[in-house]
């Protein structure tokens, strides 16, 4: 029996073995891009866990009390139907909010809920923002035209790889041996991280910078590349807007034709005239210096060079806490490498106040050195077959949905408290542990407390479920049929329904199907999962029967390269270095260094900068309940504290400590060592908030600054202190 491991991860096809109706063993399926990890294998324990929810639960006490009674599905559906109808009648369909998270990327699960809510009135309020990788959405997407163009098959061909603010030993585990092959071939790995991570250990370079200072490092490296003439002039002219001229407002590119938004102007050396960037037989210059336009205009290249030069050696050393020589060496080596790659991998560094710009400057580095679109280069963030050919929509959605106001995930509690943009009467949460994962837990909980009727769909009792009025038990992988054609893997894989769910747990699809029948939504969800899987597969010309036979299909094209040859799907066809979209949010179109408000250099009341690391143990909070993984790794949340910082507070290795700030408290066990930079404390992402574990979620202390460029989740721009004891 086959099933896809589909949290926010690499989406491996798993092969499950069943004995006497019980899942007993998991191995990697035959068709995968790389090896599986312990989390996939631990699904044996997860599926069989006694802690699984088996019946709908109705709250009998205040939110957070954990008091529930079992009710029948009939009663649960009645409650939902009644609350939906009441909410629509009193305040319209926008008073119903829903959020579907990253706990399950299989195509029938979250999409069933999305489609369902579209048919209520003229649609409901879906929580906006991408809390995972909003920085890359705001940085990479406008510059390159799209993101998530995977370079995984190119890792081994690279000579110089920068792991920027992420730890691929953990978050790209199955692919990590490809980076080790880079080293075996004589190449270099460079890790940028305040913590000596598993990836730093395997790296030849380690830049131990302060949290939130990645933007300063990136601009300083760019300055080295520009001032030392290490940039690829031909690539910049042919493939980017670097030679394009900024108009005198400084907010837009100069256009040759006001009716053509991409008629960007460049200076043609042959004629000495301003001409369209895409005119034939021209010889554009990167800089206007020395031309008759020198005092009138600036090119994008000149403007970027100015911003980069602002981060001089002294600024770099102050802001990042590393030596300028180290930063210069890495910049030079990256620029000189034949095939150089940056692994952004949706890393934690983008979850800082100016993280969108930090990712954007990483793309500048790649473009300035001509390192996008070829063998062994590029900027890796994520990517799967869905980013190359979009999967089909499994369910019909309501074409008459109207755009609703934004209810931001990172500002949820504050917005709910002030009925902004609407008074919310009901909310549904599926495939997500909202209360434990969103920043600033106490505000999230206040929001959930205010909403009169909260429904959570989950396999386990979670912090979110505890703040709900109704909890619905959902089926696990191997208990429901589904398909995964995602933005994380190039394998399309089938999930088969070979096991009975425990008690009366149902799949998301089955819950939606029953609710839709009651709501009178016609035949939209009335067919079999196989029918909806066919819809997903249609753009790939794959039949359900073929997938049923092969279980998983490798969709990779060996000749495919991300942005092959430096061609970008932007309006101009070039990489857009000047991003007017940022201007619309009140930020200049070229990044400049700005210090995060919660930078360690601004520390006063709370002197430590906290970052949250990913672990081998969980994906977000998925798998966090499992005894096996707790025994193998950690059984309560750790806080990794620098030896001097621990001594200052009388904290010894193994002590129970409380990390705190004005937002809340996070109870952990101290791990005292010198792997973490003095002044920085490393917390772990993915712990349940006090449900079934000793300890709480690190989100209790994390920053939910709002608004930021890209409405980024700024958990890694967080100041805290730590004290001994609970």
């Amino acid at each position: 029996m086959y099933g896809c491991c589909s949290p926010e991860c690499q989406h491996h096809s798993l092969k499950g073995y069943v004995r006497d109706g019980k899942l007993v063993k998991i191995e990697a399926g035959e068709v995968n891009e790389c090896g599986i990890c312990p989390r996939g294998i631990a699904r044996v324990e997860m599926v069989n866990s006694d802690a699984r929810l088996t019946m709908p639960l109705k709250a009998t006490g205040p939110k957070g009390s954990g008091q529930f009674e079992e009710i029948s599905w009939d009663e649960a559906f009645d409650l939902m139907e009644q609350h939906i109808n009441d909410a629509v009648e009193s305040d319209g369909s926008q008073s119903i909010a829903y959020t579907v998270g990253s706990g399950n990327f299989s195509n029938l699960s979250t999409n069933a809920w999305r489609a369902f809510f579209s048919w209520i009135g003229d649609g409901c309020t879906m929580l906006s923002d991408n809390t995972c990788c909003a920085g890359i959405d705001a940085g990479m997407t406008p510059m390159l035209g799209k993101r998530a163009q995977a370079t995984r098959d190119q890792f081994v061909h690279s000579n110089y790889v920068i792991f920027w603010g992420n730890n691929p030993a953990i978050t790209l585990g199955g692919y990590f041996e490809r980076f080790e092959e880079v080293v075996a071939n004589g190449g270099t790995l460079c890790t940028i991280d305040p913590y000596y991570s598993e990836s730093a250990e395997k790296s030849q370079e380690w830049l131990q910078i302060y949290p939130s200072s990645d933007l300063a490092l990136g601009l300083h490296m760019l300055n080295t590349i520009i001032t030392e003439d290490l940039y690829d002039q031909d690539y910049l002219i042919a493939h980017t807007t670097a030679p394009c001229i900024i108009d005198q407002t400084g907010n837009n590119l100069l256009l040759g034709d006001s009716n053509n938004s991409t008629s960007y102007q460049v200076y043609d050396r042959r004629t000495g005239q301003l001409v369209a960037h895409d005119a034939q037989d021209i010889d554009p210059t990167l800089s206007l210096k020395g031309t008759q336009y020198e005092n009138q205009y600036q090119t994008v290249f000149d403007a970027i060079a100015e911003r980069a030069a602002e981060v001089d050696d002294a600024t770099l050393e102050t802001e990042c806490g590393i030596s300028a020589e180290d930063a210069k060496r890495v910049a030079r080596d990256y620029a000189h490498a034949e095939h150089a790659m940056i692994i952004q991998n949706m890393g934690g560094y983008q979850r800082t106040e100016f993280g969108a710009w930090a990712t954007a400057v990483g793309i500048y580095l790649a473009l300035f050195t001509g390192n996008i679109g070829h063998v062994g280069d590029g900027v890796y963030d994520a990517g799967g077959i869905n980013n190359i050919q979009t999967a089909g929509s499994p369910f019909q959605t309501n074409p008459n949905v109207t755009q609703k106001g934004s209810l931001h995930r990172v500002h949820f509690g504050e917005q709910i408290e002030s009925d902004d943009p609407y008074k919310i009467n009901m909310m549904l949460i599926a495939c997500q542990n909202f209360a434990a994962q969103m920043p600033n837990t106490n505000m999230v909980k206040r929001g959930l407390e205010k909403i009169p009727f909260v429904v959570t769909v989950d396999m386990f009792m979670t912090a979110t479920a505890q703040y709900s009025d109704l909890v619905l038990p959902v089926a696990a992988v191997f208990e429901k049929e589904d398909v995964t054609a995602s933005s994380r893997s190039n394998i399309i894989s089938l999930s088969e329904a070979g096991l009975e769910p425990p008690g009366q747990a149902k799949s998301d699809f089955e819950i939606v199907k029953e609710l839709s029948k009651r709501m009178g939504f016609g035949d939209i969800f009335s067919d079999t999962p196989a029918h909806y899987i066919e819809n997903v597969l249609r753009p790939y010309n794959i039949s359900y029967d073929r997938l049923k036979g092969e279980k998983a299909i490798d969709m990779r094209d060996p000749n495919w390269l991300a942005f092959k040859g430096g061609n970008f799907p932007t309006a101009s066809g070039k990489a857009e270095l000047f991003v007017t979209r940022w201007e619309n949010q009140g930020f200049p179109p070229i990044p400049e260094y700005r210090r995060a408000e919660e930078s360690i250099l601004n520390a006063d009341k709370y002197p430590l900068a906290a970052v949250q690391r990913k672990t081998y143990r969980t994906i977000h909070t998925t798998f966090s309940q499992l005894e096996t993984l707790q025994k193998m790794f950690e059984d309560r949340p750790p806080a990794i504290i620098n030896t001097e910082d621990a001594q200052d507070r009388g904290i010894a290795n193994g002590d129970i400590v409380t990390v705190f700030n004005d937002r809340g408290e996070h109870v952990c066990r101290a791990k005292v060592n010198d792997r973490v930079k003095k002044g920085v404390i490393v917390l772990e992402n993915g712990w349940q908030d006090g449900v079934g574990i000793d300890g709480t979620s690190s989100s209790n202390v994390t920053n939910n600054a709002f608004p930021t460029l890209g409405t980024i989740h700024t958990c890694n721009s967080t100041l805290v202190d730590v004290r001994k004891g609970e």
Partner: protein
Amino acid sequence: MPVGFAINTVNCFGCKTCQLACENTHLQNPGVFMRRVREVNATEGPGTVFVSMACNHCDDPQCLKVCPVGAYTKLTDGTVVQDHEKCIGCKSCIMACPFHAPTFDESEGATYKCDGCLDRRSAGLLPQCVISCPGANIQFGNLDEVAQAYDGAESIHDTVATGPNLYVKHNENLDLDDFKHIDGRETVDVGSVDGWL
């Protein structure tokens, strides 16, 4: 030549897939591990060395010597196997083993030990830890073959008296002598251990 394992600690990055794949293949109860990935502090710098180890199928296995019910046998290919039906759960083998390789299942009150996936091998398959490692950092086979598995791998055979059959590729962050005290039962001069036991 007898059989044994080879591990590449230079490339192991600590995911512990081998550890859980082993547990899961042998249908152990949660947390009963015949293979364990130890996290040893590096001898140089702040880092960790991950050491994936199960039974080293010693030339002179102490488990076999001390077992009061004669549950252990050494096969002609060198594999040290336990007849689990005989085990009375006295833990003598665990204490006697320099690596604490046998593992005690509290819920069953008995001990298990790696047999190099004897049943898989008899079906022509590699041990589960070997096939599950995403970085191919574990090998099993005849010692003359596994000795060649990783460039520069060294045997720990002479580090303890029992003659363990394990080849280790390592760098300056791990001394072979560390294997004498891999579970920190005695003072470890270089590198301490996030201990077992």
